[in-house]
């Protein structure tokens, strides 16, 4: 049997009486009238204080919906714009393939060029011969 299975863990009347005295609510009616006033003042303050920045729920929902739609439209426009840019880039490359730049023509380097390997030491038997 563990500690917590013992029958002594039933409610202790003496302890309960003490506990009741410890947490007892005030009995004076004036206290409750005062608390009511304080609660209502707090509620009024909270309501008025919040009113200038808290939007009504209906407007909040409409705003949220509008923001969502704006996001979707903006996303869609962005994606279409990117697709268009990509397509235009490809088209530019394909259209300009016929008139390639001059420096890309083979004829530019047609002259005799020194072969750097000729100046190096012979590494194979054929070269040595």
């Amino acid at each position: 049997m563990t500690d917590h299975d013992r029958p002594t863990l039933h409610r202790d009347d003496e302890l309960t009486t003490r506990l009741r005295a410890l947490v007892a609510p005030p009995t004076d009616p004036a206290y409750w009238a005062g608390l009511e006033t304080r609660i209502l003042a707090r509620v009024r303050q909270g309501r008025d204080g919040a009113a200038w920045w808290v939007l009504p729920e209906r407007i909040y929902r409409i705003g949220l919906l509008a923001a969502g739609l704006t996001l979707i439209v903006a996303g869609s426009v962005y994606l279409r714009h990117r697709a268009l840019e990509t397509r235009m880039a490809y088209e530019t490359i394909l259209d300009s393939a016929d008139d390639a730049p001059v420096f890309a023509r083979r004829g530019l380097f047609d002259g005799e060029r020194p072969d750097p390997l000729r100046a190096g030491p012979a590494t194979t038997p054929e070269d040595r011969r």
Partner: protein
Amino acid sequence: MNTVALPWTVASTRPVVSDRPADERALILAAQRGDEPAFGELVRRHQRRAYVVARAIVLNHEDAEDAVQDAFLHAFRALDRFLPDQAFGAWLHRIVANAALDLTRRRKVRDADDLPETVASPFRDPAVTDELQRRLAAALASLPARQRAVITLHDVEGYKHAEIGGMLGIPEGTARSDLHYARAQLRDLLHDLRSDR
């Protein structure tokens, strides 16, 4: 000169709140429409029980009062989402318990070092000078807030496990085991004092 009573001037145009107990549903509906006296009447009816719930969780009277005020403000703001056919008391008590637990968490963070000294007296109770009473307050403060709430709400206020579970947002079985551990803890902590008696 004779005065003539005009019946239509006697009747008040204000519909809901009067001296006799009004139907709570009507009060809630009126409060939802923004009728402040109706909400005031709800406060008057429920503040005492709300205090009891809060006091079961927090460590002193002042915090209980703060929690009650916070809870009524939350309730007022959430009132348009409350269905009038629900039990207003149960709904409010859950809000109070949340407010009190929230306050306890904030206090715990802020006053982590001097918690035993913050075991304040109950409201103007002269019996607080009694040794057992002070030891009980200290022992109660050493319990986790939820266990403290469960033992107070069950043993002192007579709430059932299921009701406490609903209030604190825990399963009924958890409320049972919390009660068990809270009783065991208090018994251990106060054992020496009790054996002396």
